């Protein structure tokens, strides 16, 4: 809606992937989740189980298609620029479907999904284990969360690491801005803390670990990492005058928030696994009281990760081909765009509060409440006076 020129430019490619996603993934998810929710007791157990697997496969394939589309924005492949229209045109669907950047994004998002779900399960299960309630359900779910959590967080860090290495080749500016590396270095140091000036374009002060960025990006201690200033000059020569540096204060910090939280998630899952291996030792179990507080972390990490990768691509919307400024709908006014932006933010904010409230309530009510699916009117509960802001206004 906001991006008509983007839509014209990428419709041949991005539109195709999106259409495939609706046909292949969305129908699978939406139809089978309906069967799963409404089919219990009406369809055979086998069909019921089949339906949740189909919904899961639908979600998984949905993420593949959308991340291949997103991957094309970071690393355009399989296209030509149509000489008449100036728009991107698909010439090789197989290049599009095997775009390494798309699959890297998928691997990273997939492991993030595993890690997020695991931290969620560990948080809720710990709450029950500490209170010794419904242990026959929550001990196995804790074990599952611990095992998948360790695997997921480990893969998450590894796939993130691979993306960093790939970034050096495809999007060096993003890497340089994440590392606050102003000038090309060989070997390149890793910034532990960098303070920039108010424009975010100049370094004021920093602590750096020598060699570390080179090692992280190329597995050896001596490769060259291009700096922001050199890349800016190179891009000006190639694409014409413009500011090609992302908003560094955002990319630098969002990356550090993401990576830091991922490390915490790995330690938390490893600790959970340790608790299981130590046979639920009471000494260790008492620490589980902190687990529920970790539940928001993977969500924050996910948002920070997306901010890093999307902001790191700026000023491009499609790397090297179309800038974000060129992509907007020319017919829109600032008032129109602010109206929708503010309204969607408020609407989703309210819905998030309602959802959080419901999840908080149901998470504490035990498995029986979850099985009955909805609350009966006759049963008096103490949650009667919930304030809901009228989202219909």
């Amino acid at each position: 809606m906001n991006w008509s020129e983007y839509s014209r430019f990428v419709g041949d490619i991005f539109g195709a992937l999106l259409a495939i996603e609706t046909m292949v993934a969305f129908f699978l998810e939406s139809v089978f989740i309906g069967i799963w929710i409404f089919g219990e007791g009406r369809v055979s157990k086998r069909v019921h189980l089949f339906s949740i697997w189909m919904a899961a496969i639908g979600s998984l394939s949905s993420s593949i298609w959308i991340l291949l589309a997103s991957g094309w924005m970071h690393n355009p492949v399989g296209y030509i620029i149509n000489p008449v229209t100036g728009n991107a045109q698909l010439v090789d669907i197989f290049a599009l479907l095997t775009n390494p950047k798309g699959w890297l994004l998928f691997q990273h998002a997939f492991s993030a999904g595993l890690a997020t779900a695991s931290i969620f399960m560990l948080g809720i299960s710990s709450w029950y284990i500490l209170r010794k309630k419904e242990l026959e359900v929550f001990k196995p779910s804790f074990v599952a969360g611990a095992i998948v959590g360790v695997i997921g967080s480990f893969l998450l860090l590894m796939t993130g690491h691979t993306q960093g290495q790939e970034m050096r080749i495809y999007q060096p500016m993003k890497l340089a801005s994440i590392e606050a590396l102003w000038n090309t270095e060989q070997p390149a140091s890793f910034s532990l803390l960098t303070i920039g000036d108010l424009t975010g374009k100049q370094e004021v002060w920093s602590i750096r670990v020598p060699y570390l960025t080179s090692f992280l990006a190329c597995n050896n201690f001596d490769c060259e990492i291009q700096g922001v200033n050199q890349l800016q000059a190179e891009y000006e020569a190639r694409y014409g005058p413009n500011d090609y540096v992302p908003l560094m204060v955002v990319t630098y910090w969002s990356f550090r928030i993401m990576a830091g939280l991922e490390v915490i998630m790995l330690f938390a899952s490893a600790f959970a696994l340790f608790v299981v291996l130590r046979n639920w030792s009471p000494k260790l179990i008492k620490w589980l009281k902190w687990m529920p507080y970790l539940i928001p972390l993977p969500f924050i990490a996910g948002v920070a990760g997306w901010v890093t990768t999307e902001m790191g691509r700026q000023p491009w919307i499609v790397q090297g081909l179309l800038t974000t400024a060129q992509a907007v709908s020319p017919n829109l006014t600032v008032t129109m765009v602010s109206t929708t932006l503010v309204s969607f933010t408020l609407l989703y904010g309210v819905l998030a509060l309602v959802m959080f409230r419901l999840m908080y309530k149901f998470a504490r009510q035990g498995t029986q409440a979850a099985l009955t699916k909805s609350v009966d009117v006759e049963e008096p509960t103490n949650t009667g006076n919930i304030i809901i802001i009228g989202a219909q206004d």
Partner: protein
Amino acid sequence: MSYEFLQILWFILIAVLWIGFHFLEGFDFGVGMLLPFLGKKDEERRAIINSIGSVWDGNEVWLLTAGGATFAAFPEWYATMFSGFYLALFLLLVGLIIRGVSFEYRSKDAAPAWRNRFDWMIAIGSFMAALLLGAAFANLARGVPIDENMMFTGNLFTLLNPYGLLGGLTTVAIFLLHGANFLGLKLEGELRERVNVFAKKLWIGATVLYIVFGIYTYIAGFWARGFIDPGIAPIAAVAVLLAAGYFINQKMEGWAFIMVALNIVLTQVTFFSMTFPNVMLSTTNPAYSLTIYNASSSQYTLGVMSIIALIFVPIVLAYQGWTYYMFRQRISTDKKTLVY
């Protein structure tokens, strides 16, 4: 396959997706709008919601697929329409969001005020969506200001012209009737009797609006501005709507439902054939109109997409049809059987 063949094929496929969407989601919207008026007690409202509970989600994907297919096959159409109808589509999304969330949340708390609020959000969301979709389609039939760069030059109020508003209201009325007929098939007992009484009244309003809207379309000259004349499709659409009135009075719920469903299908057939090969008519200058030729994506993409659609659309139709068969029983107000 020639380029032109593929362009026509994708125009037809997108038309089919919109037909499917109006047919399926039409009764979902109708059921949603009827909810607070038809259901007096909580379990009645729950039965009404449960009648579409297992299918509304899948039905709504027809809208997404129509949008996605438009993006892939006719990017220029997608770009001009989605940024041109900006605030209208924004309101449509708000309607769909509050409606979808309310289905999930309304029975998760026992407080009557909570439930009532979400029931009204379902009704208002359904109403907004039906009204705006109807208005959008009427404006596509009427034409909108588009300049030589395929740019929409109007605003929200351009779309709120009398013809657009009448199209929106007619869509709301037809969907209400369609929803009532669907509930006649899905509910039982007292609630079924009540909905059949509703259907009789709704039929009068819907038929009057539909005929007025048809006459308006004809007199204003929005008729057959493309290559083909819709022929008997609009006459047949009126005929099946009149037949629906007969069947509603005879309490033949199945036939009444089929007749209104046919009316919706024939209306869409009329719409898509009377503008073809235009996809967005320009009122500024007919030469600026978007057509299947100047709005389409490349032959290669259309070819690839055709193969994928040929494989997956039949599979989707098969499993979605299967769910309707699986959940074909009537819904009672017995709380043990209700989910939402």
